């Protein structure tokens, strides 16, 4: 395939497969549906591999660029491209989609076609968010992801799914509508929707502050940052396993990515001006939400709060404006994608068997599910930031960055190492160790081949990234440097 069309392929192949599945849509032959979905996810993943392989890490320029006129009246272009900041997320999205299709294999029995189609289309849309170089295109993809996720939570979710789905949709929409006004304003000021033009556009401090806050509304909700995080525990708890995995692994990153692509470079002066606010909210998330996670009795909720805490680390890394912090934050984003996804899958494995997420309902799982317990332990450790797992690399880099920024910030950030270990390992201890708690636990079956494959895939990448993070940082480095360089120059008119 021509390398010029790779990004389009990564977007539209999953969406096309999703449409085919919707058209086939029935439950008469779920096997065929699952097969087609897996093929679609795999092809979608395979086309992203050459993007990484052929990526030139020496330049911060956009690569694999595609540019066609889209809406000529508005000067909007179908303009795609990746740089060091976004390239890994394209792969991550496609990879997680494969995992999610495998995870839903036997678990989802009703409306299989619609389920698989939702995830495939969501995958294509999210790749679109990461690769759009046109503000309008970005917004369209960003918003469009809401529809499949709303349906996923609402149709295949738990008992309070309706509440969770509405909360998810309206929270996110509230943020992004303000962003829309900001985007229109930027379009009218710059005369085009090209994000690159917006980066170069000089703006007064007042404009920058307003734009920053309007963008902040969307991205902070999506990340989510304290105190607008409350939709996330609900959405996570009620969503089906696959939905939780995609939410944690990729959707939250859309917000963080938005900071890097929009907030920082478009309003650099406002970013410096309001950096204290973001850092303050991030540290609150790290410390306070870490404590909140500690007292959860619902496993999914615990991991959801831990996600908020970890994402607090990410935003903290962004707003210290140094290379270590920012690169560490990006690594943390990728790694959190693997680890939180894996943890939700682990909880899903337990839930499929016992239909309970309550920590109190378990105990001594290691006796009946040794293979599962090993994976669960590994990912819990990774979540706590154990060295040699990917969780360590990102956190360590951000803390190092924080030391040079402000030692007290570093101190507060380092609390996450303690809290993370506390809530992850305590949960693990209560679920896995001790005597077999009850007859149901005694009757548990260990992982089947499908579950084993999906968890080991994630374990391999987590380990790989932990032992050998250089390939990851190599690709991001130049772009992060360029971004920091851009942000350090004032663009006040």
């Amino acid at each position, binding site marked *: 395939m021509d390398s010029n069309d790779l990004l389009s392929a990564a977007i539209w192949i999953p969406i096309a497969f999703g449409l085919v599945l919707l058209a086939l849509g029935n439950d008469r032959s779920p096997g065929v549906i699952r097969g087609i979905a897996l093929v679609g996810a795999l092809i979608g993943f395979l086309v992203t591999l050459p993007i990484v392989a052929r990526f030139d890490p020496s330049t911060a320029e956009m690569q694999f660029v595609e540019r066609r006129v889209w809406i000529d009246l508005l000067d909007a272009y179908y303009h795609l491209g990746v740089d060091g900041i976004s390239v890994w997320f394209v792969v991550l999205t496609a990879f997680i989609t494969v995992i999610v299709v495998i995870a839903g294999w036997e678990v989802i029995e009703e409306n299989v076609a619609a389920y698989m189609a939702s995830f495939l289309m969501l995958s294509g849309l999210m790749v679109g968010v990461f690769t759009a170089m046109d503000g309008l295109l970005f917004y369209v993809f960003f918003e469009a992801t809401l529809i499949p996720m709303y349906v996923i939570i609402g149709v295949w979710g738990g008992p309070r799914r309706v509440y969770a789905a509405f909360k998810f949709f309206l929270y996110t*929409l509230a943020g992004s509508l303000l962003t829309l006004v900001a985007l229109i304003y930027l379009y009218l000021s710059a005369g085009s929707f090209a994000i690159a033009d917006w980066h170069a556009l000089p703006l007064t401090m007042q404009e920058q502050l307003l734009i920053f806050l309007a963008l902040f509304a969307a991205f902070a909700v999506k990340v989510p940052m304290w105190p607008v995080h409350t939709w996330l525990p609900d959405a996570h708890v009620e969503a089906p396993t696959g939905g939780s995995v995609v939410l944690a692994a990729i959707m939250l990153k859309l917000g963080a990515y938005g900071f890097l692509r929009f907030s920082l470079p478009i309003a650099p002066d406002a970013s410096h001006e309001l950096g204290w606010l973001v850092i303050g909210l991030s540290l609150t998330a790290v410390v306070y939400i870490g404590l909140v996670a500690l007292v959860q009795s619902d496993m999914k909720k615990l991991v959801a709060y831990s996600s908020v805490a970890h994402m607090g680390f990410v935003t903290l890394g962004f707003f210290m404006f140094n290379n270590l912090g920012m690169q560490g934050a990006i690594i943390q984003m990728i790694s959190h994608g693997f680890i939180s996804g894996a943890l939700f899958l682990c909880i899903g494995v337990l839930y499929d068997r016992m239909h309970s997420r309550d920590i109190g309902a378990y105990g001594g799982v290691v006796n009946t599910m040794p293979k599962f317990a090993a994976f669960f332990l590994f990912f819990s450790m990774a979540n706590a930031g154990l060295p040699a797992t990917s969780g360590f690399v990102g956190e360590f880099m951000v803390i190092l960055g924080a030391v040079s920024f402000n030692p007290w910030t570093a101190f507060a950030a380092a609390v996450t190492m303690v809290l993370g270990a506390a809530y992850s390992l305590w949960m693990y201890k209560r679920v896995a160790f001790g005597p077999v708690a009850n007859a149901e636990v005694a009757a548990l079956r260990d992982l089947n081949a499908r579950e084993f494959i999906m968890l080991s895939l994630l374990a391999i990448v987590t380990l790989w990234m932990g032992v050998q993070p250089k390939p990851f940082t190599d690709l991001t480095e130049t772009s992060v440097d360029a971004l920091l360089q851009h942000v350090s120059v004032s663009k006040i008119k």
Partner: protein
Amino acid sequence: MPDFNLIALVPEILLLMLACGVLLADAMLRKEDRHWVETLSLISVLVVLGALLWQAGGPAQTAFGGTFVVDALAAVLKITAALALFVALIYARRYNTERPVPRGEFQVIALFALLGQMVMISAANLLVMYLGLELMSLSLYALAAMRRDDRSASEAAMKYFVLGALASGFMLYGMSMLYGASGSLDLSDIALVSRAEQDKTFLVFGLVFIVGGLAFKFGAVPFHMWVPDVYQGTPTGATLLIATGPKLASFALAYRLLVEGLPGVVLDWQHMMLILAGLSLAFGILIAIAQTNLKRMLAYSGIAQVGFVLLGLIAGMVDGSFQLAPLAYGASMFYILTYVLTTLGTFGLIALMARSGFECEQIEDLKGLHRRSPWMALVMLALMFSLAGVPPTVGFYAKLIVLEAVVLAGYLWVAVFAVMMSLVGAFYYLRVVKTMYFDGPVDLSTPEPATDARLVLGINGAAVLVLGVLPGPLLTLCVEAIQLSMVAR
């Protein structure tokens, strides 16, 4: 000796002849052959559509000494109105057959309503305008009243008639003021007077009534009272016609009267429109939340959507210049076209869901639709998200371009207000999706519409999505149509 230029009226003349033909056929045919009337009326609409397309290829022209104009704006709106009627007749077919609706009359009156709309769209003279308006309105009153044994339908028809007549009276009173101020019925003469440097109190006095009448026809707050009752009460087959074509004609009427006829008092009517738009957005959306009746909810949502259309009209003149007018009025026009597209779909779906002895009226009636008929649920999902303005549906671009025009005109806070309102509005569209997808079905019957209706509904839903991915051509068409029409003036 005024030039008649009957060529400009070919579509209207054809439609009149065909409508009379259908009327005759209905009277002559035996009862068992009556279904031919439906086919004949569909063919008539297609013929008119062909004539309109043929005419759209030619240059702009006028007839009857400039009282009747055929320009780009007229072409686009008339073609849309004819298409909308075609689609609506297909949706309403089985619905009407299964109910005691006189079939021939329904078709004939619908054709006359279209004729009225076409005359309104092309009118450049107050008298012609009023003629078209009354032809359309009287036809619609009759359509609403067609089920005279049904209490709610009769009540709705009565309300529609009384309030509609009141609105027409307003309009006529305003028109007489304009005539008094300018001494002419031609919009071009009135425009000259409105531009002249002189006391305009008289003109503005007339303008108030004109805007009031227009707001009635659009269904904008505070002239919206009839909308919910009429939408809810009339049989869905008639609602389809009341909720679509007349909006297009009202837009043309507003454009001709205000932009072409009264450019000199633009500041006055822009402020009136701003108030109407703001009220419509706020009230339409907030009241829609409380509705449990689907048609009534859609009526209130329609009021809110009209608010957006009117927002486009406030953004045409900025600092005394009409430079941005094509974008702003084009945005309004794009909005109204997409609104008609989605409204056809939603009311069409309601008509198709109904069976003999069962009306799909409550939101509850859609429960579990995605299990009963996945494709219909998917179409409704696309329509709801389009009304809510969520991409990738066409409704998003409609909102986007209106907001862009509003921001460009300097009303940044109005845009923020509109955006916040559409966030609130998203709730009740989401609730419909929730009912279809998240709730289990109560009755397990599968709605099985006729093949043609199924096909058209599919195309209707697909259009919302396809235009949501590639809105460019239609957007350009709307802006260029306004541009050409403004140049031609």
